[in-house]
């Protein structure tokens, strides 16, 4: 089964890149049309209004700039990004190490695989509130939440990457008298790195989800706080603005990562 299907971005790429490269120009126009359609629909929905608590697109944008202007948006992101970045670094280092070890040694695979498979499929969100009750409402609990969501994804992708290295290349290395270490460093890791990087990208996506969950479920700080506060005082435009900014931020970061992945990691595998 096509493993790309598990990766929403790769599935999206797979669906779109299979045709001949259309003109850049054309894609840009379609993008703009798409955005216009979305914003237009939003504006209309707010004007109708479909719900008294549904602000128009324009009022949301206004609220967004207001929050950027008075610094609340920036402060909120700073507070939210701290545990996110720490959690992601921990998850990346730990995750890649465990995943690669799983790919290289059957015993590690046997011990670790079930745990991470369960963690990836299961609704780990259920555990987050309990984590907070035990570890307090500070940085630790939030970092743990990020790790809980990001680690399984990174581990499983790294493991899959190492396990699916082209056996012909390994044979080639053996035939030229490469030692096991040489096989690992010169063949396995380079061949696995695109999938490992894709795993990192998915892990970052999961980490985002983790931190937002943590902030919504636990005593909120940062972005979660903004959302909850504005909801409580019925500043719906501000609340929507914050939520939209989170979605946009997440999409933008992932786009950048995807670009990096295509450009630097495996330029010859673009679109495959």
């Amino acid at each position, binding site marked *: 089964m096509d493993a790309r299907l598990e990766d929403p971005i790769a599935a999206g790429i797979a669906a779109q890149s299979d045709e001949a490269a259309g003109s850049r120009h054309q894609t840009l126009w379609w993008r703009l049309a798409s955005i216009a359609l979305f914003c237009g629909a939003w504006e209309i929905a707010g004007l109708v209004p479909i719900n008294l608590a549904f602000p128009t697109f324009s009022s949301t944008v206004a609220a967004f700039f207001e929050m950027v202007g008075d610094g609340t948006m920036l402060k909120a992101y700073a507070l939210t990004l701290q545990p996110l970045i720490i959690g992601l670094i921990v998850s990346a280092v730990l995750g890649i190490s465990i995943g690669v070890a799983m790919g290289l040694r059957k015993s590690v695979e046997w011990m670790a695989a079930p745990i991470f498979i369960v963690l990836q499929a299961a609704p780990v969100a259920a555990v987050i509130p309990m984590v907070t009750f035990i570890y307090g409402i500070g940085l630790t609990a939030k970092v743990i939440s990020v790790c809980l969501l990001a680690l399984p994804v990174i581990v499983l992708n790294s493991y899959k990457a190492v396990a699916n290295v*082209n056996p*012909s*290349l390994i*044979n080639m*290395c*053996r*035939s*030229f008298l490469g030692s096991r270490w040489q096989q690992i460093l010169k063949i396995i890791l380079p061949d696995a790195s695109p999938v490992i990087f894709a795993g990192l990208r998915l892990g970052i996506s999961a980490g985002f989800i983790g931190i937002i969950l943590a902030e919504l479920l636990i005593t909120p700080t940062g972005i979660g706080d903004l959302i909850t506060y504005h909801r409580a005082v019925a500043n719906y435009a501000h609340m929507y603005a914050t939520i939209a900014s989170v979605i946009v931020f997440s999409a933008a970061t992932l786009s950048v990562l995807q670009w990096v992945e295509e450009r630097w990691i495996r330029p010859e595998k673009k679109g495959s």
Partner: protein
Amino acid sequence: MVAVTRKFPREPHGEDMASLESIISVRGINKVYPGQVHALKDVDLDFPAGALTTLLGPSGCGKTTLLKIIAGLLAPTTGDVLVKGKKVTAPGPERAFVFQDFALMPWATVLRNVGFGLELRGLAEAKRNEIARRSIEQVGLSGFEDKYPHELSGGMRQRVGLARALAVDADVLLLDEPFSAVDEQNRRKFQEDLLRLREIERKTFIFVTHSIEEAVYLSDRIVLLSRRPGQVSQIIAPQIDRSGTPDEIRRDRAYLDTVEEIWQGLRQFVD
């Protein structure tokens, strides 16, 4: 010139091959895969130094398996592989392998790929680049040193694989259907190039193919393997005058007769 054929299951020692020593011998090779798949049965062969021997047979006859066992990439269930009289169980510096699917590192340039065997042995970069460049020139890829595999055609990629095997200066070159993933025109060109290469490099070649014409065109000796379980069914030494142009060779009476004879011998194995 008439093709001489021998129908012995065992290797005739020294007769038509004059005083050529066997650089590689296999004795009593059996390979059984899990699930009782008997790939090779009681294979005894000698490979004379400096000659090009081809392993030929229908698919599933175990010729690639045998080649990998000789290379040390696969362990036989029973039997021994002897290189220059000494038993070996793993890859060694005297044998170099050329892969059917090229096995090039997609993230490395042609230069690095060709020098990879030397890199694994710890040679300094300057030295191995120098040797690599010479090999690249030998296979006709000068100017492509800084290209990546994805920028090359199938034929060119296989030249890189060949250059890599030449760079380590092994005594024996093992080629696993090297031209099967390449188009027909390039394939013919490769065959002609390989013949020319043989005149320069006094190496031993062990070749695996399923193409009868290719085998007869290139080989000093052809070992025919039967269907699974693979056993040696015939050994043929085509007596063909290879001094003419490629086209002359392909129209030579002896060449055509040998091809026909082998085809008749292998027909029984076609579904």
